[in-house]
């Protein structure tokens, strides 16, 4: 745990792609058991933040702590092993692997191999569709099924914290509602969630707290219920 007890804490984080500065001094916290959402328009830097946490892009300056560990300079696969699961933007399904192989791969760094059988069962209980399609290649799944698989893989890494990058992207409203309901259940079962979304209404309904990211800086934060009625958020993200 960090001094203030947060599971994840990001402090004054700066990230740039060459000369393009994507994040200029971001700070946020996620506490154990919470669902926190980060909302922002396209290009605000949401994915960059998640990638920085996961060790996929180098950090210019600032701190990222997970529990008591400093994540700076830890390689991406080690961060997964430490307990951070990341459902990437666009789902990142391996289309050339079967559903089962996609799931199996996500257990690469797990040491508790005995618990695996139970975890596959849990994932198939949550997503019965994946059980039906376990021998089909990932590329044959529909968009909604691919999103299920992406979340299921994250569950199979058995992380304590799950980062999700726009899981609602490209899905019908019904599917979005299903996925968000699943996230609520996953959270209730003990996984802490940091959810990045453009779909602000749904995300704020689900989350306990939220942050608003605009061109690389956090401009607002607070309880989800408060943000929902905030006039500037209503105007910019909730369609008036």
């Amino acid at each position, binding site marked *: 745990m960090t001094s203030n007890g947060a599971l994840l804490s990001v402090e004054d984080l700066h990230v740039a792609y060459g000369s393009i500065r994507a994040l200029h001094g971001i700070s946020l916290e996620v506490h154990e058991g919470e669902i926190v959402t980060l909302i922002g328009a396209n290009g605000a830097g949401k994915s960059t933040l998640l990638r920085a946490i*996961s*060790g*996929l892009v180098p950090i210019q300056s600032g701190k990222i702590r997970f529990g008591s560990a400093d994540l700076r300079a830890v*390689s*991406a*696969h080690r961060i*997964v*092993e430490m307990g951070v*699961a*990341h459902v*990437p933007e*666009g789902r*990142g399904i*391996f*289309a*050339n*692997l079967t559903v089962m*192989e996609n799931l*199996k*791969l*996500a*257990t*690469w*760094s*797990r040491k508790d191999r005995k618990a695996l059988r139970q975890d596959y069962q849990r994932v198939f209980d949550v997503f019965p569709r994946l059980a039906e399609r376990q021998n089909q290649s990932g*590329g044959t799944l529909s968009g909604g099924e691919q999103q299920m698989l992406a979340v299921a*893989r994250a569950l199979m*890494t058995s992380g304590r914290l799950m980062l999700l990058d726009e899981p609602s992207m490209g899905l019908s409203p019904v599917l979005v509602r299903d996925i968000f309901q699943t996230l609520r259940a996953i959270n209730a079962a003990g996984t802490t969630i940091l959810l990045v979304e453009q779909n602000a209404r749904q995300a704020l309904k689900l989350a306990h707290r939220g942050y608003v990211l605009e061109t690389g800086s956090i401009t607002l934060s607070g309880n989800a219920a408060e943000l929902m009625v905030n006039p500037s958020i209503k105007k910019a993200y909730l369609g008036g």
Partner: protein
Amino acid sequence: MEFYVQQILNALQVGSVYALIALGYTMVYGILTMINFAHGDIFMVSTYLAFFTSTLILGLASGLNPIVVFIATLLTAMFGTALLAVVIERLAYKPLRTAPRISAVITALGVGLFLENFMVAFKPVGPAPRFLPHLIPAVNFNIGGVTVSTIQIVIIVVSALVMLLLDTIVRRTMVGTAMRAISWDKFTAPLMGVPVDRVISMTFALGASIAAVGGTLYGMAYTIDPYMGIRIGWWAFISAVVGGIGNIRGAMIGGFILGFVEIFTPVFLPSTYRDFVAFSLLLVLLIFRPTGILGRPMVQKV
């Protein structure tokens, strides 16, 4: 009739070696979309590792069971060649992974030239062709007019076993699954907890040790020299492209096709036409089926 059966056997023998080497090209291409032009010369080095190991073993203990000598030679060549390939990848290719594609190609060609010239300059090797000591007794059997040697049987059977083993590793094991995942999307693989750099090293190690099996088998049947990797490397590379580069089973099929081209060209044409036929096959295939026999067209990723 006997003549053709004989030629088919010979084609299988040569094709096995091409297939084993082609696998290394195709695996590295599959995972890094890079053509490791040093691979033919890595194969050449493996034949010398087999040469020195077997000479040493037979010099120290001459009465050993041939199977023990063969296996010890094979394993040493595999291990040494794998190590060489991993070191080459770490020192020469890895720093260039984000550089333009052409840099890695030029570096690979440079590494190949280095290996050739190092072997020529290295006193215990030198430019002269050499024979491996006899690892197993060479006995010829005559079956209905067709001559089969123990060497030929060992080459074909061992190659088949190694290919079967590799196919199983790639399809059934965690490392194999990771290799296929990285070949699809190497940016997402780390999010599954997969150590991508380590899996890439393993791919080089696996490809090189399979080439070393090919090298040891080749050395049992033919002479070896420091420049052998150029021609054999090209033929194996064409095998990989013909089968569909990036595709494991394609490389195996391609290897056997090139084995048949090599053996059957002189049956119908002057033997100097061999390379011409092989390269023509490559060109025709590239025009009509650019992804090779089993290769799928590259799927655009979003």
